[in-house]
């Protein structure tokens, strides 16, 4: 009996020693490499939130990145900063991309991380505007060259109208709410949070025409053409941190809304209005090519871009990194080089 007890004690002690050794072995990670610096030109609006959340939750640090977020009001200046070399990666909607493509500036879309139907036209009801067709001949404020500009074209053309049927008033997005409230324009075409700010400014006098399914904007991550080849691991870590932030946003909806409200200086209710119009997901869809080409044709038709041959936007897509991270998320059919 004593022998068997001693034997059991010996066996238990041996198992504990082995487990302790294995635990020490498994938990002993190699010293992490120093964080890799990365400058991201971010937009201070709802579509930029995944990056601010990733920074706030420490996902960048977890992935070994030391990310510097440049704060830009919307995608167009962010893209321009990247193109000037002030940032490694920029987040922007598809419209600034097509304008940049006409300048033959070499860059690549490495992923789109969010699609949204947040765009809308906010009009003054006191100007007798009840439906989109009532916009004929009205003064519409818009930020020229942005996705809101193309969105306005979609909304008008769906109703058989053209840009020529209305009077476009170029107004920077942050100033649109004030201009609408002051009556300098009858309506504005914009994206959140400016649409919300405009509705709030008009109080009960606002009438909105949301994009619905007629226009879906793509929020893209853009880098210089060779960036993915030069620093593929940095891009991979950036995409992985972004993916974690997106998952966190899905799993912590209210916390994400509260954080966005604080970050953008908005009320929570205002953020919630638009929140469900955002569909965060890392992907490279065929729809992006469709949209880029459609917007390119539009830009050439209205003279915002030189009438030239349609750029091959497959050349502006770099799916190499995303294919490693989420191969099922790449649905763009890339032709053979």
């Amino acid at each position: 009996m004593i022998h068997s007890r001693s034997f059991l004690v010996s066996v238990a002690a041996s198992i504990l020693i082995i487990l302790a050794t294995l635990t020490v072995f498994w938990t002993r990670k190699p010293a992490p490499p120093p964080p890799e610096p990365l400058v991201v030109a971010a937009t201070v609006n709802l579509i930029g939130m995944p990056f601010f959340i990733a920074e706030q939750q420490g996902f960048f640090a977890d992935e070994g990145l030391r990310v510097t977020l440049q704060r830009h009001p919307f995608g167009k200046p962010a893209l321009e900063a990247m193109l000037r070399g002030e940032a490694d990666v920029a987040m922007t909607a598809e419209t600034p991309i097509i304008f940049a493509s006409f300048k033959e500036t070499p860059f690549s879309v490495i992923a789109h991380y969010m699609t949204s139907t947040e765009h809308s036209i906010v009009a003054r009801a006191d100007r007798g505007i009840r439906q989109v067709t009532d916009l004929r001949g009205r003064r519409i404020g818009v930020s020229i060259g942005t996705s809101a500009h193309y969105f306005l074209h979609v909304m008008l053309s769906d109703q058989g109208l053209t840009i020529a049927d209305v009077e476009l008033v170029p107004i920077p997005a942050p100033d649109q709410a004030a201009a609408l409230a002051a009556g300098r324009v009858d309506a504005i075409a914009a994206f959140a949070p400016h649409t919300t700010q405009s509705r709030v400014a008009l109080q009960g006098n606002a009438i909105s025409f949301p994009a619905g399914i007629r226009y879906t904007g793509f929020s893209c991550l853009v880098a210089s053409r060779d960036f993915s080849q030069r620093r593929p691991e940095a891009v991979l870590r950036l995409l992985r941190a972004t993916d974690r932030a997106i998952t966190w946003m899905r799993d912590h909806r209210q916390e994400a809304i509260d954080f966005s409200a604080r970050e953008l200086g908005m009320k929570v209710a205002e953020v919630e209005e638009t929140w469900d119009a955002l569909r965060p997901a890392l992907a490279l869809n065929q729809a992006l090519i469709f949209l880029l080409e459609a917007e390119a044709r539009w830009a050439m038709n209205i003279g915002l871009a030189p009438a030239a041959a349609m750029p091959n936007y497959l050349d502006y897509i770099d799916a190499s990194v995303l294919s490693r991270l989420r191969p099922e998320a790449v649905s763009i059919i890339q032709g053979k080089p």
Partner: protein
Amino acid sequence: MNLRSRTHLVAMMTLLIVAVLCSVFLFVRLQKTQVEREIVRVDTLMADAIQFRGTLSDYLLHRETRPRLQAEAKLSDLHHLLGDQMQLTVAHLLHDAQSMVLWDEVSRLLAECETLFADLSSREATPAPREQEQRTADLLLLSSESLILTIGQIHRLVVSDLLEAHSYEEMTLWTLLAGLGGLGISLFLLLRKGVLVPLQQLHEAAILVAAGQWDFRLHSRRRGEFGQLANAFDHMLDQIQETTVSRARLEAEIREHQQAEADLRASEESLRLLFEYTPVALAMFDREMRYIAVSRRWIDDNRPFIGDQEIIGRSHYDLLPELPDHWKAVHRRALEGDTIQIDEDQLTRIDGTVQWLRRVVLPWYKDNGVIGGIVIFVDDITARQQAEAEVHRLNTELEERVGQRTAELVAANQELDSFAYAVSHDLRAPLRAMSGFSQALLEDYGERLDGEAKIYLDQIIIASRHMSELVDGLLTLSRSTRGELRRDLVDLTALAERLLMDQATVEPERPVSWQVEPGLCVRGDPVMLEVVMRNLIENAWKYTAKTPNATIRVYSENKEGQRCYCVADNGAGFDMNHANRLFKAFQRLHRQDEFPGIGIGLATVQRIIHRHGGAIRAEGAPGHGATFRFTLPTAETTSKETK
């Protein structure tokens, strides 16, 4: 815990383990079945989405009723399928956020497709703006494509779930099998430990005990029924062994007792026989002087007084009423513990013969140490007394004869002395005359004598001198065996030194070295010992005459337990084969012209040593010197001899 409780516990544990394992397996199996159903549904959804995409393309190309209806039918199928699917899968996939997002996306895309297709088909009657229609068509194509791709992603997830469920099922099955196997082994081990082994031990114990190993015990430390059974078994063996051992011990004691009785009887018989037939008169009495045992010799010796009547049990004093009082007093002393021995007691018998007796009266003791009576021992020593008287008579006669012979010997010695003196004295005178007249003739008439005559005269002188030496030697030899032998302390070292110095003085040209051990003292006749030492030293001196670096040593040594005194030299030595001739008179081992001598010295030495009671021995080898060792009795030995 007893066996019954243990059995119940094991049964319950077994049921519990089997139930848990089976439940886990069934749960996993159900999950797998659920996933398999979902795969079927997702496959159906995928087929419908692809068919919708096909009819949509057909409709966009031809804008006819048939493809429109087909597309609408497919949209309707998808709608219903997705509605059912959602209800069925939400519960299952609630934990999978990614799947939920994809299902939401499918629903959204389907809704978009429905809206866009409805928008497109509603414009058949009223054509829409071309760009708007084109955009709607594009959006439809993109949405339907996204729908298919998203369903494909769900398909992959479900397949992944299926593989996982399959893996779980397999793992659970193996776990179940391993669990059942382990359970079986555990049950076997428990059964073996708890039942089979104890039973086997009991079985073996019973066989051993049956074979006679009563000392065997189980000494079980088990608890429960088998432990109690083993303890009871041991206890039973204890009792059986105790009974068996007691019986065996009793039987052994009886046997020992019987043997002791037999031995006692034999001993008594032996004692009786010994007593009866012992060749001496022996009687054993109790405290009242009643006969207990008596030897035949006793009866024979006392037959004149007691006749042939039976005496055992009767009082000695009754049988011999005239026994003197001093004997009764002796008996009383013995009864008080004294032992009385009378070595020589003369008894004059009735017939007038004298008998010498040795009597011993001593007490005998009982086991408790109390004197039980006395034993009287009477031994007839008449024959011994007669033998002693004869010896005494013979001794006296012998002493008388010795005295007579001694007187005769003294007279003979005196005669021999006289003869020796006469020989020496009477022979010396003619020898001196021969030598003296030869010398005178040579001195007075030598000139007239021719050479040969002179030689003859010289030979006469030499022969006379040699004769004289022989006479001296014989006289010395004669004296050595006569006269009183004194036992004085003699300093042998000083004697040897003096004699050696004398030799060196006579022949100073000889380079002889000598070593004399200091402190050599012996007890003997000084004059005779000087004769001994002079002969030995002169011999040594003489026989080293032709030896360079001549050395003479006088020393003592212990040999064979005796103290030997040695005179050794490194001279001519002798052949040991002739050693027995050395000590005989007139026997010489060397030629006269080599080493002159008369051959009496060593004979004289041996006689003197023998007369002292010692011994002498010579060792040597030709050319390697000689050693003479003699012993002399020590003072103690001498004293005994003197006595």
